[in-house]
């Protein structure tokens, strides 16, 4: 066992109401590239945050052995002092500082005078940049670099900290193919230098290409660790591990009888708000009354971006394409216009985009359709309470009162408040973005029954989800999205988790 650099033993991490990790054990050999994969929300990032001290020692159960010695990290500085460096999916560079300043940020080398010796720092940075194959002047501001090069700066920064175990969270999610290939080459080179690497990735082709072993995490548990050199291990094998949960009675039954088409988009194209790339390209899809349509796609596939751009152009620029509601072409240039056209969008991150957490249930429920409760600008407060009370009963929102502050409710009940808000706008089509993320099993079931009730009442529903079982359990029809394009569409009867995952991980070139 002396070739094991890292051992995480029986890690359990709970958040209020949710067990994110349960009894996870992970062993990483020295000098290997160890991939971790699993569906979104399976607990991969949480595990890495435990490892890097973002969740300090004591906030979880279990132990971490690094080089055979038990470790108790109280913060990122502790783990970095031991040579464990994490590079998050959202790059943590300061855009207006130079490459060298970013590399030495928080780790500044001071000369004898106590001041930073910039000549030395820039020279050191240049060496580090050379070692990651980035040919840029160290004084260049980071904002002038593309995402791929920024990723390399992050790795150079890690190297400057004498990294021994490098953790990369979805390193290629935002990269194009050339940059991705460069990055993978670099990881191989680092491996030659004896740096161990843990890589979280959704891209199975990359994992099979580069990883020595792969641990699959599902529902907060480490399901298995695969030896990637074994003959029988391929992408199919990993997919089976990732989705190997059986469909059970977890999803309430529903009779499907789709009616007329309610919403259709054609040739929908969206450019990234700042970067010069397309986030959504030529997407067409439709949904009918009484139908649940799923959009399956990995993180970064453009699911949320697609939904938000349809919903009153809330995301991106240069949005092109045609939008039809009930067969009639409409313009929804603002959120208010989208709402007027019967579109509702339940956001992915309810805390950031869905709710006013410091206000009460009542006002959150009425927020998107105050005009229905008001005359000449005056809100009828009593009617508002009545509406909120109705929602509370129909949605079974567990709150002491509709006057209670939303921020204090559980995730599931918050989600029901968001749903109530959008149902009160009386929409024809609801776009639900990750409607059950971060909520417990019981509340999920309730959300599903609410969706079924809506569909039975003739609403059209689009569900965006990372959980394939959820899509298979809930939808009539499923589209797969990869790199901003529709890569497939199938009735649920023909879909399996494996077939969806294959379409979701399809590379750009393979798409027609």
């Amino acid at each position: 066992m002396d070739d094991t650099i890292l051992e995480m033993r029986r890690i359990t991490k709970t958040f209020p109401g949710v067990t994110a990790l349960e009894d996870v054990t992970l062993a990483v050999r020295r000098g290997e590239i160890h991939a971790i994969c699993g569906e979104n929300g399976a607990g991969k990032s949480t595990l890495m945050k435990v490892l890097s001290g973002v969740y300090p020692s004591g906030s979880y159960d279990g132990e971490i052995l690094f080089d055979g010695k038990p470790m108790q990290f109280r913060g990122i500085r502790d783990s970095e002092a031991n040579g464990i460096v994490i590079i998050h999916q959202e790059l943590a560079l300061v855009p207006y500082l130079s490459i060298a300043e970013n590399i030495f940020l928080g780790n500044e080398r001071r000369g004898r005078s106590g001041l930073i010796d910039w000549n030395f720092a820039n020279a050191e940075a240049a060496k580090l940049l050379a070692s990651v194959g980035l040919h840029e002047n160290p004084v260049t501001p980071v904002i002038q670099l593309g995402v791929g090069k920024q990723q390399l700066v992050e790795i150079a920064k890690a190297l400057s900290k004498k990294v021994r175990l490098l953790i990369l969270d979805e390193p290629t999610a935002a990269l194009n193919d050339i940059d991705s290939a460069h990055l993978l080459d670099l990881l191989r080179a680092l491996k030659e230098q004896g740096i161990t690497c843990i890589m979280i990735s959704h891209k199975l082709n990359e994992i099979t290409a580069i990883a020595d072993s792969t641990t699959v995490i599902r529902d907060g548990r480490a399901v298995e660790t695969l030896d990637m050199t074994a003959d029988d291990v391929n992408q199919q094998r990993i997919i089976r591990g990732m989705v190997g949960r059986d469909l059970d009675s977890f999803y309430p039954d529903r009779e499907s009888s789709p009616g007329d088409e309610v919403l259709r988009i054609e040739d929908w194209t969206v450019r990234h708000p700042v970067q010069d790339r397309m986030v959504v390209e030529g997407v067409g899809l439709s949904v009918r009354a009484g139908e649940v349509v799923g959009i399956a796609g990995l993180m970064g596939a453009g699911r949320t971006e697609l939904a938000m751009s349809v919903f009153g152009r809330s995301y991106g620029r240069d949005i092109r394409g045609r939008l039809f509601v009930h067969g009639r072409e409409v313009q929804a240039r603002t959120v208010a216009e989208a709402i007027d056209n019967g579109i509702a969008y339940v956001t992915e991150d309810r805390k950031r985009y869905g709710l006013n957490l410091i206000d009460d249930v009542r006002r959150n429920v009425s927020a998107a359709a105050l005009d229905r409760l008001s005359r000449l600008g005056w809100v009828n407060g009593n009617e508002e309470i009545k509406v909120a009370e109705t929602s509370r009963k129909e949605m079974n929102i567990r709150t002491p009162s509709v006057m209670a502050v939303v921020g204090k409710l559980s995730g599931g009940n918050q989600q029901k408040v968001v749903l109530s808000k959008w149902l009160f706008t009386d929409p024809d089509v609801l776009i639900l973005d990750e409607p059950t993320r971060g909520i417990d099993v019981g509340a999920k079931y309730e959300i599903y029954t609410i969706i079924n009730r809506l569909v039975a009442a003739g609403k059209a529903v689009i569900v965006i989800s990372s959980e394939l079982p959820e899509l298979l359990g809930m939808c009539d029809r499923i589209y797969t999205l990869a790199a901003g394009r529709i890569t497939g569409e199938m009735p649920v009867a023909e879909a399996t988790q494996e077939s969806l995952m294959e379409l979701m991980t399809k590379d750009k070139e393979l798409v027609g």
Partner: protein
Amino acid sequence: MTSIKTPSTERPTPPDSTPTAALHSGTNDLRALVLNNLRQSGIYVALVVIVALFAVLTDGVLLSPGNITNIVLQYSYILVLAIGMVILIIGGHIDLSVGSVVALTGAVSAVLVIQQGHPWWIGVVAALVVGVAVGAWHGFWVAYAGIPAFIVTLAGMLLFRGLTLRVLDNISLSPFPSEYQQVAAGFLNGLLGGEGFDAFTLLIGAIAVAGYAVSGFRTRVARIRYQQPVESFPLFVARVVLVGAVLMYFAWQLAHARGLPIVLIILAVLVLVYGLLTRRTVFGRQVYAIGGNLSAAALSGVKVRTVNFWMFVNMGFLAAVAGVIYSSRSNGAQPAAGNMFELDAIAAAFIGGAAVTGGVGTVVGAMVGGLIMAVMSNGMQLMGIDQSTQSVVKGLVLLVAVAFDVYNKRRAGTSR
């Protein structure tokens, strides 16, 4: 796979309480009631404590009829500014320029009325128009150009102070005709007679108390009808009696001084109107929504720019009202008028429970916050405490008030 088609029968719904039951079942738990409203009730308690403290320290002079009248006259314009300021702060903005706008609007009015001899009301109207225009200017830059309010109004502070100097040609103007002076120094007095006191003032006080009781009772009835939790009936009566007693005492003292100040009527109307505007109108709701979570508000269809724009227009309007009151009270216009008023108004809003991060605050809270500052200043002046100490104390009170707010929020912190 089990088939469950009627989920509503799945879980027991909470037992429905009938309206009649609710009439008797209000909470009697005073402690819970106080804790639930700690942020709000805290400042009422603070005001009472400060009033009591200074009443003792000044041997009762603080609460003498003449001094109460004085406090009203001296601080009314700060309270008017605080109304507009708290609305901006709720919306997540700030206005640093109101002191300069007070000066500018007063100056415009003085030039028209004093220098050019126009009737007094021309001055008032012109001041209001200038105030609204200034607000529209700020609103444009904040809402449509996307410049942070701090910067826009900091620029406005310099800009409009400069324009004030230009308008006044760097000299003071005075005096205003007597009608203009009535705005801040006039009293409604003797309309109904009275021996040694003003019966009209008492009548208005009584009407205010009755209005408070009736509207409180109607809210209570409506809440019960909609099955909302209410305080128990004795507690409700106790609250009305307490507030009524305070109001009547206040009216009694005013009646024994010079009667009902006109400026108090203006202030009361503004508080009433803006209290309703913030709580009961779509606009008010949208202000809270924007301040509470800008993204969520925008994704709920709130026209964020429009609302932001009108918030600033409103602030400009109220700054002009304050400008008229201040110029009337000082009976003229000075180049340095209104200096640092913005800080008093901002302090009033924050002491009154507005949150630094936006989304929280009330007009009434800001008024109480303003009164706390006013009573402290007035009390310390009566005690002959020098300016430097006054400033130190006021600064500390502001700091403690906001620290309390931040502590409160952290304690109540959202889950996760």
